[in-house]
């Protein structure tokens, strides 16, 4: 069998033809952009398309690619305008490519068109995944639930010191029209590209060390549409912000949808200047409340003084009339008293007179009755005495028996044979006791 030999060039040529045959037209591929570099002079954009294992993140495929300047010039702005995201490493894209194979430069893809919707979809999907995870961990609303003090004056600023955002913010803040006082401290950080996440977290950690010195943290970045967002759609950064003990206010300068860090932050503003305006507005609300309180204070004092004055006035006005009336009343009573005095006195006298005669009469009747009573009593006792005397009894027929000089009241006391002397009204009889019969034995 005849061995077939090719030169390398021939081989590559054959490969080139077979690729061209199997890929006659361009095709749409989904891939992640990485190592994106734009050659300033030529305007060509060179990059690599990669694909990682969705779970393990292990690299599965890689291909060199380029976007020639004539395409890049229109494609890049178009993409940025519709996604608010610059063509940078790390974003997933759906691109129309032609498959090339060059004998010398080998396999490469030439990007001809792009479908931003896919990237947007991917961004949104990624964002939702992060939000879901934050919610599951129950930390999604932590920062939102913090209360911003009435007077957010001490602000920690995380931004890139050189970007326009910082200047606009400081200008707006320090030259606010009412001259409110703010105290700021810059924590510089890269706000673009893959360094962003680590740097912002580092800044947050530094602020955390003096967390009691601040009222709020502000994460701002100017630059409008040219800025890229995916660095702010990062789980680590969002989790950090969500759990940060101070309210975080974001102003990452873009019109389109919110990044995850916007969603977890206490307050989201569109631009750095908007954040400054928000802070100034907080202070002016407090100022206005103070002014209203001040007004209330003077108004109520005024009202109170007015009220006191009125009462005072009324009093002074009424005093003459009242005193007048009082005097008149007193006179009237006096007069009426004066008139009634004589008959009052007369009445009193008569009353006393009557009283006197009355008692006199009472005395008399009382005295005579008293006497009568005494006389009656006397008579009674007299009668009583008379009746109680023995001579009266004797006259009535009763006799008195005496034995040896002692009056005998019972038959039992008599001694048979003893001489008894019986007293009668007209004289006495002496006798001898012969026998004693007891009352019951007689029955």
């Amino acid at each position, binding site marked *: 069998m005849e061995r077939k030999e090719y030169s390398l060039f021939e081989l590559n040529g054959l490969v080139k033809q077979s690729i061209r045959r199997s890929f006659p037209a361009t095709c749409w591929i989904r891939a992640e952009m990485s190592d994106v570099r734009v050659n300033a002079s030529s305007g060509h954009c060179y990059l690599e398309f990669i694909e990682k294992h969705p779970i393990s993140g292990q690299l599965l495929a890689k291909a060199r690619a380029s976007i020639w300047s004539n395409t890049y010039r229109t494609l890049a702005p178009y993409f940025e305008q519709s996604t608010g995201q610059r063509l940078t490493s790390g974003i997933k894209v759906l691109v129309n490519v032609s498959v090339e194979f060059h004998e010398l430069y080998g396999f490469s893809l030439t990007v001809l068109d792009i479908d931003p919707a896919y990237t947007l979809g991917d961004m949104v999907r990624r964002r939702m995944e992060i939000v879901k995870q934050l919610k599951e961990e129950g930390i999604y609303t932590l920062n939102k639930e913090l209360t911003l003090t009435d007077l957010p004056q*001490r602000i920690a600023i995380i931004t890139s010191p050189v970007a326009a955002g910082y200047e606009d913010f400081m200008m707006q803040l320090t030259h606010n029209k009412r001259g409110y006082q703010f105290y*700021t401290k810059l924590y510089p950080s890269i706000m673009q590209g893959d360094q962003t996440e680590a740097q912002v977290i580092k800044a947050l950690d530094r602020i955390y060390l*003096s967390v009691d010195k601040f009222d709020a943290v502000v994460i701002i970045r100017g630059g409008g549409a040219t800025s890229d967002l995916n660095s702010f759609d990062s789980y680590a950064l969002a989790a950090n912000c969500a759990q940060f003990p101070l309210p975080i206010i974001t102003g990452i300068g873009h019109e389109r949808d919110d990044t995850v860090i916007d969603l977890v932050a206490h307050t989201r503003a569109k631009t750095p200047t908007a954040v400054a305006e928000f802070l100034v507005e907080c202070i002016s609300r407090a100022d206005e409340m103070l002014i209203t*309180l*001040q007004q*209330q*204070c003077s108004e109520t*004092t005024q009202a109170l003084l007015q009220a006191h004055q009125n009462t005072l006035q009324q009093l002074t006005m009424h005093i003459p009339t009242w005193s007048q009336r009082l005097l008149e009343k007193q006179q009237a009573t006096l007069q009426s008293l004066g008139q009634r005095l004589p008959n009052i006195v007369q009445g009193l006298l008569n009353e006393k007179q009557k009283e006197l005669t009355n008692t006199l009469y009472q005395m008399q009747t009382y005295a005579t009755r008293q006497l009568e009573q005494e006389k009656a009593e006397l008579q009674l006792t007299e009668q009583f005495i008379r009746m109680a005397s023995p001579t009266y009894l004797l006259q009535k027929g009763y006799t008195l028996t005496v034995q040896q000089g002692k009056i005998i009241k019972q038959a039992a006391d008599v001694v048979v044979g003893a001489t008894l002397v019986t007293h009668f009204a007209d004289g006495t009889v002496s006798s001898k006791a012969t026998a004693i019969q007891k009352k019951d034995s007689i029955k």
Partner: protein
Amino acid sequence: MAKKKETYNEAINQLREIVSEIEGGELDVDILSEKVTEASRLVKVCKEKLFKADKEVQKILENLA
């Protein structure tokens, strides 16, 4: 001032209290003048917080890590 300056919120609350006391209307006149002077002092304290730069706070922030 010997007394530690009230915080902004303390001052505001005291101010509100005074206003409601005056609104109550029973306040007699001589206490009224005392209350009003206290109220104006509190307003001054709050205004200072809003407008006057507090050197101390500035210094603290400057030499933070």
